[in-house]
């Protein structure tokens, strides 16, 4: 069923990782990405990887999900891998030479290195959405971007749009399901034919969906007005984001990790990389 799709792939829990302040989590995730790109050799990269796995274990998220998060991005990973494999030219003799294909030792090492880095990147980033509810994420984004308000960037409006989008995704999916059944009942053929035929067959589904989405938007705006919505000005929030000791400790650990990676880059020299 379309209804079973999970959005944001949030897995509720009560681990230390779940309880971290979502603002800090976003910042720490960015720091993690920076760390991965600083890591210049296998030793530092693998250290970053081990660090990430430890965080995974702390969060209580099942390791199966690591593979689940990688699956949709597999084409990109393979693409990067192949691209690096063929297009990196080394100094020595090519290992393989078949027509226009040449593979160098450097190509293999770089390709493996880049692939590992991307895998770590994806897995680390998905930990953020696994352990943070969409609403906490939206909240955190609103607060992190709030300095931009001075530049008249519509931060509150953006966050409100995200909330409403999240709220209505399941509703609209359900509606799509209903419209599809209704059109099928009238003999619409939605599943067969080529790509273009299939796309065309979606028009009678999309048009009613759009009409109803606009109607909903209209009613929602009315309901929001009735509840005194007047934009972000003077608004308070029920749930206050609070950062505590654990957030500070998390930041310190992250800083220590980055320092460790930098040191490893400088002092650990692995021949051939």
């Amino acid at each position, binding site marked *: 069923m379309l209804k079973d799709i999970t959005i944001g792939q949030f897995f509720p829990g009560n681990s230390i990782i779940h309880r971290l302040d979502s603002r800090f989590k976003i910042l720490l995730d960015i720091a993690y990405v920076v760390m991965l790109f600083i890591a210049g050799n296998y030793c530092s990269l693998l250290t970053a990887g081990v660090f990430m796995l430890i965080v995974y274990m702390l969060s209580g998220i099942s390791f199966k999900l690591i593979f689940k998060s990688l699956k949709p991005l597999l084409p990109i990973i393979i693409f990067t891998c192949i691209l690096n494999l063929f297009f990196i030219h080394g100094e020595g003799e090519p290992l393989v030479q078949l027509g226009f294909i040449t593979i160098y030792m450097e190509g293999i090492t770089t390709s493996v290195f880049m692939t590992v880095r991307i895998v770590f990147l994806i897995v680390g980033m998905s930990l953020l959405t696994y352990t943070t509810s969409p609403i906490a994420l939206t909240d955190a984004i609103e607060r992190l971007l709030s300095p931009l308000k001075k530049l008249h960037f519509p931060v509150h409006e953006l966050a409100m749009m995200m909330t409403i989008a999240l709220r209505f995704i399941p509703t609209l999916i359900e509606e799509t399901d209903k419209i599809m059944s209704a059109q099928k009942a009238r003999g619409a053929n939605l599943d067969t034919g080529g790509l273009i035929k299939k796309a065309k067959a979606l028009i009678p589904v999309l048009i009613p969906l759009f009409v109803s989405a606009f109607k909903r938007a209209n*009613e929602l705006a*009315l309901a*929001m007005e*009735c*509840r005194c919505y007047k934009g972000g000005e003077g*608004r308070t929030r029920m749930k206050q984001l609070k950062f505590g000791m654990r957030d500070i400790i998390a930041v310190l650990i992250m800083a220590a990790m980055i320092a460790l990676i930098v040191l490893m880059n400088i002092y650990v020299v692995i021949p051939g990389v």
Partner: protein
Amino acid sequence: MEERQIIKTEDLIFDYTVFDENGDETGKSRVLSDINLSIKEGSFVAVLGHNGSGKSTLAKHFNGILIPSSGKVLVDGIDTSDESRIYDIRQTVGMVFQNPDNQIVATIVEEDVAFALENLGVPPDEIRRRVDKALKTVDMYDYKDHAPHQLSGGQKQRVAIAGIIAMRPRCIVMDEPTAMLDPKGRKEIMATIKMLNKEHGITVVLITHYMEEAAKADRVVVIDKGKILLDDVPKKIFSQIELLKSVGLDVPQATELMYELRKSGIDVPDDIIDEEECVQVLYDILKSKE
């Protein structure tokens, strides 16, 4: 003490401007004409009318969503055309709509109930208290961490009601709140409405086309073609069966049954509007025949 009128309309007229395909004005269509209505604080008023009678348009005047073309609407003495007081008006008169899906804003039940209070700038601790209380009032406290799409229609509508009562309005206008619900959800909502009116003293204006629901009110206002046709207690309203039928309205089934029985010569009272009374009358008749 003088009785307070929470909502008062004075010669309310409302016209829709009609546009042609090019967006040019081609005329006006009168939706409401000369409505004079006073709603007493603490009462439970049902507004009845069939589709297109103007009942929803009237409801939208009660908290300043629509402003009369001429005449006045006073909410607790404040003229709804006074834009500087619009948030006072909307806090006094809350509104619940037909489709529960389209009035829930947040992805978590309690966040949604907090929405109005957040807009009003209420301090966080106070929001927390009022949200919990509102959710307990409509008996949805156990679902406070749920996502709206996991709830049934009746539950969603109760969340929407909680979102309104968290503002502590003195009056709630409900625009066909049960029209999209199944019989079970309808029952839940009617029980909630009655409870809010009786136990919490909130004035309720229920816009509906279900006769059974209107029969539960203290007072019924029948609207037809933008005018007030009848305005009385339910028993008096539903005894005028021919008039109601002539404007496309039904009467409660119990009343209809009594009406048909009376037509065929059986002596039954003409002011029966709910099923229990009806059962009692039939029981008495059958008993006396034995």
